[in-house]
């Protein structure tokens, strides 16, 4: 009998596990796959290390900063800043055909760029900043107001509105078209006010630290342990049955499987409400080049590009939508550690993709379409960055079906359901959600999400306005 069983060894599940094990709970994390990480995992192919998910750790604040989600996360999990070894970004860009805006860590560069490119919007941008600072993270009603409405009230130039929305939607918007204002504020702070960082060794360093700490505290991890169902009796979850038939008893369950996916696991739920199921998924074109990206003139850490009239954030009807995308390179961070140089370069380009279209392909057309989509996406991206195609020595591609296979999320969604449950509650008092469908996005955000649910479980407080649930991405 465990005090808590956690479904999923991603960032949120591991963080929750550490908190609970630290406070002497008997905790077991169940992971369907052989590796940990969920949406933020890693793999090795052709002798090279690849990251999945992580482009950049958002919420980057420098060592010594006491405020913000990263500092708070380190204190909650008892890590030192150096444990995550985050190197800051070199600089990023929002690239539209009409205008480009640079931004770095801290709001100053973006502020001056907005003033340069949109001098008439200077005060409007300051007003927007005030609204973002005043926004209360945890008010579920305020969370869902329309960002587009607020932006239209504040800023006149539609181009600036689209340019601000582009990176923030790209890095964490589960809704199509519009964005919850709460999510917008969280993303604005984590990307524009704080910034990007990355450990030289990639996401595996963070995962390694998390799992080591979890195990040292007595936590158990079972891999290849997919959950078949959660057994419910008299309005309480009493245990889980694994796909291999094993039964596990738990006083409490925390699930990072997603809202719809978790409901489907409960054996007391016959009809799963999929009204809010997300359907935004991605394709990623990964190129390995024989030099560092800076040698071909790509000097940005992340470039968010878009060339449609208004930035279009929705599931495409076609396999992919190459009009907007994110270009990032793990090479382009200010690494200072010894031996922290790469022998070659990696450029990852992400685009919106349609799960159903990819899913419907047979094996041979799937392979063909992968190559075609890779070419289409890279061709679109090199309109905004130097053409690197003559230097490519290896490629890899993942699609929405790859994401579903590794995350178990319906439709291969990356940002989950369109309706977020900030306090993670479900119809059962001892079953909680953590992770993406709780509305916490990004590496730091998802860990904070797991922590907030663990704290909630530890204190036995059931109100959503509990002071310990002070969120943030």
């Amino acid at each position: 009998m465990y005090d808590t069983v956690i479904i999923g060894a991603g960032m949120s599940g591991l963080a929750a596990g550490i908190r609970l094990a630290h406070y002497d709970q008997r905790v077991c994390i169940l992971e369907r796959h052989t590796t940990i990480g969920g949406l933020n995992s890693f793999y090795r192919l052709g002798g090279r290390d690849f990251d999945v998910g992580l482009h950049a750790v958002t919420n980057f604040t420098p060592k010594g900063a006491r405020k913000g989600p990263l500092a708070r996360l380190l204190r909650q999990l008892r890590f030192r800043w150096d444990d995550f070894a985050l190197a800051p970004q070199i600089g990023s860009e929002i690239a539209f055909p009409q205008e480009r805006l640079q931004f770095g860590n801290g709001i100053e560069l973006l502020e001056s760029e907005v003033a340069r490119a949109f001098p008439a919007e200077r005060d409007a941008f300051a007003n927007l900043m005030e609204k973002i600072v005043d926004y209360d993270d945890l008010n579920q009603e305020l969370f869902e107001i329309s960002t587009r409405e607020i932006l239209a009230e504040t800023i006149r130039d539609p181009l600036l509105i689209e340019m601000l929305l582009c990176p923030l939607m790209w890095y964490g918007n589960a809704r199509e078209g519009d964005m919850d204002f709460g999510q917008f504020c969280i993303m604005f702070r984590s990307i524009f006010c704080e910034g990007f960082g990355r450990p030289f060794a990639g996401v595996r360093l963070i995962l390694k630290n998390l799992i080591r700490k979890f195990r040292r505290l007595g936590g158990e991890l079972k891999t290849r342990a997919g959950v078949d169902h959660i057994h419910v009796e008299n309005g309480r979850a009493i245990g889980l049955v694994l796909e291999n038939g094993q039964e596990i008893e738990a006083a409490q369950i925390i699930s990072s499987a997603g809202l719809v996916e978790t409901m489907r696991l409960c054996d007391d739920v016959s009809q799963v409400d999929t009204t809010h199921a997300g359907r935004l998924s991605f394709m990623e074109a990964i190129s390995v080049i024989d030099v560092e990206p800076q040698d071909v003139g790509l000097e940005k850490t992340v470039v968010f590009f878009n060339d449609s009239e208004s930035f279009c954030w929705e599931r495409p009807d076609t396999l992919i939508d190459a009009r907007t995308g994110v270009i990032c390179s793990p090479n382009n961070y200010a690494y200072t550690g010894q031996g922290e140089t790469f022998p070659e370069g990696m450029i990852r380009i992400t685009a919106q993709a349609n799960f159903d279209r990819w899913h419907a392909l047979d094996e041979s057309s799937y392979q063909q379409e992968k190559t075609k989509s890779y070419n289409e996406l890279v061709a679109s991206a090199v309109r905004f960055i130097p053409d690197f195609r003559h230097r490519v020595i290896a490629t890899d591609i993942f699609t929405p079906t790859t994401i579903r296979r590794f995350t178990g999320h319906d439709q291969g969604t990356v940002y989950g359901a369109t309706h977020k449950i900030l306090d993670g509650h479900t119809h059962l008092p001892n079953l909680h959600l953590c992770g993406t469908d709780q509305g916490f996005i990004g590496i730091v955000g998802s860990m904070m999400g797991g922590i907030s649910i663990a704290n909630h479980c530890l204190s036995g407080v059931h109100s959503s306005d509990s002071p310990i649930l002070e969120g943030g991405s």
Partner: protein
Amino acid sequence: MTSEEIREVIIDILGDIAPDEELGDLKDEIAFRDQLELDSMDFLDIVMELRKRYRVQVPEEDYGELASMQSTVTYLEPKMQDVEKA
């Protein structure tokens, strides 16, 4: 435990929560919030560490007593006088 020992316990807990902080310069009469920018999650952590390590219960209505080192030690003295130092 003496008040000096209680102070050491709190320093130890703070060192655990914020390993990057230099706690040698901590001023006893100034609020933790102002010196270390601890937030409500951190205060709850201090409470939980006290419960875990010494089985000392701090009810929610008393959280305000943990504002500074001075007020924390004063508040904990009667509660921890019979507690043996770990």
